[in-house]
């Protein structure tokens, strides 16, 4: 009797939440014919980096970019973490814009940047060759020198430079980004980094 009651309540809660349209999405408008980037399968670190380059800062690439980030919910065991340059973090005090930067935060910030970049020119480049930090069958860490030109609505800076130390882990079948360490570039011409840009677009959450 007790088990039946529990089952009834659980089934009612589940079916109620699933059948009341709580998880129904809205109907999108068909595209206007514009071409989109190619979102590569997450089968190698090279594909991950290529997806970041192609998708970041583009509204239609948002789903592709966030799919490269490790998530506790998925089969990937390690979730995404962003680590800013310590100087960027110190100069933001007493604000703590980089606190608890996980995939949820990165998703929202990437969305804000992509939407802000919609009406402005946006260009992201990684210089080659990159530095090998670690190269194991299931773990790859690379350091890229990046440059980004962007004129957003929340900040007036247009050039961002730095070093992106990206850790990629393979669990199951896919590679995912688990850690992203941002550093200022000693060879750059500006101290404005990708981390500074990210921190400027974390507003309200």
């Amino acid at each position, binding site marked *: 009797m007790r088990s039946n009651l529990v089952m009834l309540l659980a089934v009612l809660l589940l079916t109620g939440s699933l059948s009341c349209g709580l998880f129904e999405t809205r109907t999108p408008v068909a595209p206007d014919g514009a071409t989109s980037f190619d979102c590569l399968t997450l089968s190698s670190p090279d594909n991950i980096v290529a997806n970041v380059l192609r998708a970041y800062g583009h509204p239609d690439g948002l789903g592709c970019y966030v799919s490269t980030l490790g998530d506790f919910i998925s089969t990937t065991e390690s979730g995404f973490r962003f680590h800013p340059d310590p100087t960027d973090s110190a100069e933001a005090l007493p604000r703590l814009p980089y606190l608890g930067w996980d995939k949820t935060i990165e998703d929202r910030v990437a969305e804000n940047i992509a939407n802000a970049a919609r009406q402005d020119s946006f260009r992201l480049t990684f210089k080659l060759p990159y530095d090998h930090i670690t190269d194991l069958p299931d773990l790859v860490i690379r350091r890229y020198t990046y440059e980004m030109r962007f004129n957003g609505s929340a*900040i007036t800076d247009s050039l961002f430079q730095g070093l992106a130390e990206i850790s990629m882990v393979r669990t199951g079948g896919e590679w995912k980004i688990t850690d992203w360490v941002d550093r200022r570039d000693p060879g750059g011409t500006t101290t404005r980094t990708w981390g500074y840009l990210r921190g400027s677009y974390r507003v309200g959450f």
Partner: protein
Amino acid sequence: MRGLRWVAILAALFAITFAATTGARAQEEDESALAIPDSVFQLSPRSPVSYVTQYTQDQARYGWTQTLDYGRNWRSLAIGVSGASGTSEDVLTYGSRSTNGDISGRVDWRAAQRWIISMNGRYSMSSIADGFRASNSEQRRNTISLLTQYRLPLYTGAALTLSGNSDFQRNFDVRNGGYARNGATGEPDTIVAQRDSFYTEGRYDGYRAQVTLPTVRGVTFDGKMFGSRAKPTFTSLTRFSNSLSTGDSAWVTEDPRLDTTLPANTFFLDGALNFDRIRATKIALRAKRNSQDQPYADLSRLVVEEYSSTSDLYNLSLQTAPIPGLSFTGAANMNQTLREYSEKANLNSLITLREASTGVAYSRPGTLAFVNLTLNRTRADRQATANGLTLTHLVTTNFQQHVKGSLWLVGLGSATLNSYRYDLTPQDGARTISRNDRDVVSSFGNVGMRFGLTPRCSTAVGFSVNKVHNISLDSTSSKGNLATTIYQLNGALRLPLRRNLTIGQDYIFTATYRFFDFDEVKNDLSRVFRIDTSMADTLFPFAWIRLDHHFYFFDRGDFRPVEPGGPEAYGVAQEQAQQTLEGTVGIRPRAGVTLVVKQSMTDTENHDLVNQSSQGAEQWNLSLGLEVNRSFWNGAGISGAIRREERYQTRSQLDGVLFKESHWLAGVTFQKDF
């Protein structure tokens, strides 16, 4: 006497209510910072001096930290002194170098049974030099705090605690930087060095009241109030130095001092009402407000930023267990936070969150199950961008069922919808919904089974499905709409052949389907099959050996109809096979000391079936390590590991470059109690 106690209770409640209704300022700091617990005056058998030092290094950074603590406790007096320092620097000379130090001391004196006087001081500094090295920033924080606290027992179980404090703070922030300035020819001919500094001084007066009432007829009340007031003065100074191409250099410009005095008020109020008079039922109501006016020195803009925030939280929760093993929960939350900046207006926001959740759980020997449903509605206003509504719906479930003997059935599932609905802006033109609107729906389900074949041999099987669908609503971005479905089947086997010999195998098969809503030609499928095998044997009490083999196979290709309207077909375009063989030997020459040698070889083969080409690579890894975990005399101990890792390729057709790399990894901690 009894009447006086009730007057005190009513006065405290009135003060809390008055503060809430007059909209007094609150703060987001730890509201319990001023409370001195009675445990401070508990005699400890021995209060040693404790010293800990730690060194870590990896491929990119190294760090060194030290801490030293001393503390004594008597019945009426407690003292404590501590110091800490840390250094961190990039090994490859990239990025930053940071150092920090902190010295603090504290004296707590129980002047009377219920009266405590406390004094503490803290001096801290931190310095960060970024990758340019020419640019660095430094912070110093000096604080001396005086506090008095009085605890008034009202009647059995009820108490009122009052305290007040004054903090004398002096902060110093300085940043040095340099940049090149172009001359008339357009080429840099001047190097400008700039030194910006802020000096902040102020006295922060704080007060605190806390009242706790005992449970009366199932009702318990706990209330806290905390606040501080100050008017710190900010003094800024900027100096420039122009180093001309001729070599001349001098401090040529100096800004006049700028004194700014601004209020810095904080206030915190928290009240909780708990009701548990109904059998097996708990109801809690909580209201909380905190706000602050916090001016601070912004060195990047050389201005005093006036930051203010106000946050209100209301929470109602219910938990009931009508019959043993069965419980229901429900909660409703409302939270509103307003953040405003005088200079960085782009960071302003007003966030209003409303959330309701409910759940049912069942637990008894052999069975465990729960279902939770959460509905969240968050609205963002007053932001420079991205104002609007976010809806989040989440349902999670989990169950474990003991079937028979050693057979268990386990499962979990979740479904999430995040719907981002932004306000229309002028850039949206004639649209009826924002061009940035999007929905993300995801679901995850997993069922598994654990089974003990024999008392020593066990197996586990699991199957999971993970779906994520990203949907942009507007036509300008909907072409990238992507639905990803991942099916995964995994199994594990643990087989102890002998007492010292164990074999384990893990199998994973994954299939990932990607469907583009409006770009079907890009639909594809990728599959992965991997087997991980390990064998561990303890040869002797002082040695062990472990062999691992990893097999990984991957293929991918288009997954779309060969002809319009027909069924999808899988056309394999790429294959990759990878095998890794790894051997590890560990030797323990004496207790707490282990030598570990590990070598592995990885062979990778790529096949491009479209262009009929193949590539391969072979990589060797060697690792030599020493692990120590030993205790020495009188509480001293050391633990850590140091490892030398080398990697090199003997064959590479992937990019034609033979990769070679080696580095040290280290992490050592030494601890000593005196």
